[in-house]
């Protein structure tokens, strides 16, 4: 009951949000929240740390943008092209990466994503350093005009909720239970007769496809796609979002994504405020030094805050319940 209430309140808040906050900013947050949730499916529920998720986000964005802009596909097909492309890249990358375990898996995903970054840099249609510009939003299903930010917001919200529900459903399905078993004890899962490699690959492709959906949607919202999204720092950013919110918690990545995006956008204001309070001039340059701050948060999270915000809150509740029983 309690859970349903919270979900209901959150949905109402999400529906009302664009009347108080700039919709494009909200949509960007939704896309990154979906991206982080898709990433969390892999790290939090299968125990695989991918450092190559930027490739899915970025390439889905490029192909979605290109298919709408240059091939003239309708918007919904463009999104589909982006998602399918990410799934395909995920299939190839997954097939290679699951041949090794643990830290090697991570290095392989990072290396393959770097390769795809160089490809994006060299292929003409991506526009190299300038990026792919001027992607039209078009009309969804031929009659919903997306040029209004408000309309697009509700479409993006629907996509995000759909993707999120799919992830929650997956986690609680028998398939998700097997993934969890692989995460907790891989040799045991093998000895129970599960084809671990296939489960891992399926989870990888699913995570890639949903990341792709997020990337394609993001391109539609902003109207452009740049190299930032395929760069390794983007792969790091999604790790950070998930880590800050809480690895392996359902809502953690959403919280993390909101916080990190807010921080990236408002860092300049925070810096100015700090400078006015502490009278240290240096803080006014904080807005230009996002990487320093994200690096710092990374270090603090890894050293002292590994459960993340939602994870810590859950732990607190559990403690309270145990004390309540006694």
């Amino acid at each position, binding site marked *: 009951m309690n859970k349903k209430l919270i979900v209901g309140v959150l949905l109402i808040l999400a529906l009302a949000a664009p009347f108080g906050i700039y919709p494009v900013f909200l949509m960007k947050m939704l896309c990154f929240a979906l991206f982080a949730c898709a990433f969390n499916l892999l790290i939090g529920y299968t125990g695989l740390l991918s450092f190559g998720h930027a490739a899915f986000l970025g390439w889905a964005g490029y192909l979605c943008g290109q298919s709408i802009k240059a091939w003239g596909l309708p918007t919904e097909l463009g999104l589909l092209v982006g998602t399918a492309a990410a799934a395909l890249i995920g299939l190839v990358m997954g097939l290679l990466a699951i041949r090794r375990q643990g830290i090697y898996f991570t290095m392989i995903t990072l290396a393959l994503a770097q390769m795809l970054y160089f490809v994006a840099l060299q292929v003409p249609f991506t526009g190299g350093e300038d990026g792919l510009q001027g992607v039209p939003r078009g009309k969804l299903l031929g009659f919903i005009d997306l040029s209004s930010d408000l309309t697009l917001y509700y479409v993006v919200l629907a996509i995000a909720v759909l993707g999120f529900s799919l992830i929650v459903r997956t986690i609680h399905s028998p398939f998700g239970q097997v993934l969890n078993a692989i995460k907790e004890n891989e040799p045991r899962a093998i000895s129970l007769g599960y084809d671990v490699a296939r489960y891992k690959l399926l989870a990888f492709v699913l995570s890639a496809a949903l990341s792709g959906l997020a990337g394609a949607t993001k391109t539609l919202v902003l109207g452009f796609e740049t190299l930032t999204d395929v760069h390794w720092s983007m792969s790091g950013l999604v790790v950070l979002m998930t880590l800050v919110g809480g690895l392996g918690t359902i809502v953690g990545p959403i919280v993390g994504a909101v916080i990190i995006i807010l921080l990236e956008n408002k860092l300049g204001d925070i810096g100015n405020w700090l400078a006015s309070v502490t009278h240290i001039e240096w803080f006014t340059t904080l807005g230009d030094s996002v990487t320093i701050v*994200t690096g710092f948060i990374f270090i603090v999270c890894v050293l002292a805050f590994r459960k993340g915000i939602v994870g810590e809150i859950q732990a607190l509740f559990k403690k309270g319940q145990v004390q309540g029983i006694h």
Partner: protein
Amino acid sequence: MEIFGIPLQALLSQLLLGLVNGSFYAMLSLGLAVIFGLLNVINFAHGTLYMMGAFLAWMGLSYFELNYWVMLALAPLIVGAFGIVIEKTMLRWLYKLDHLYGLLLTFGITLMVEGIFRSVYGVSGQPYSVPDALQGATNLGFMVLPNYRAWVVVASLVVCFSTWFVIEKTRLGAYLRAGTENPKLVEAFGINVPLMVTLTYGFGVALAAFAGVLAAPVIQVSPLMGSNLIITVFAVVVIGGMGSILGSIVTGLVLGLIEGLTRVFYPELSATVVFIVMAIVLMVRPAGLFGKEK
């Protein structure tokens, strides 16, 4: 003289450039392998510490008029000390956890250090000239050999093989190898394993800084030079496997050569060829060329 329509001189000079890059790969992947062996940490910050080495060389010359040779000795010491501080204050707390946290921590350090250098020096490169003693080139008859590039290859080979010798053939190395296999037992024999771990990390990152100083005159000194390199080095490590010291040296050099050859025959692929080789190796021999199947 021409080979496949490429002038021999051009081919050889690209191969030499490949060998120079290969020596950097070798030194960095060697450091990664040594650190991973004892600490079980993949040091993402390795590239950044390499960048720091190059920057220290440049800073030494621009601010204190310390020449190349002084910095070649001093920069590894400074970066090594910095590494020891990182190990003592941060990495130390993560050994009992999943390997992933070590990677994430060093990734955070990379972002921070790189961000600081970027906010001070911007992204453009700082030029650093070749030291006087190594300027010019030697004519070998079949090719003109730039002295500095030859020096880079020789110096890194000497450093790599001394490291190999120390680890494989001396008593100290035996302790180190034993510590990799079973740290508890080695500690029971009265060897200070935590100290050994700290010094190993310090040594590994000093090696990266040494490579950085060597690289300073070859490429422009820029805050981004490290992170671009480290991902390629990760691919090298996946190809070679981290089980063997000699393996990582050889793999690094060979991949540098392959990259050089690609630059001659098909330049479009030169940035990605290492990753393609990695994909092929993963398909044919998943454990890596020198790795052991676990």
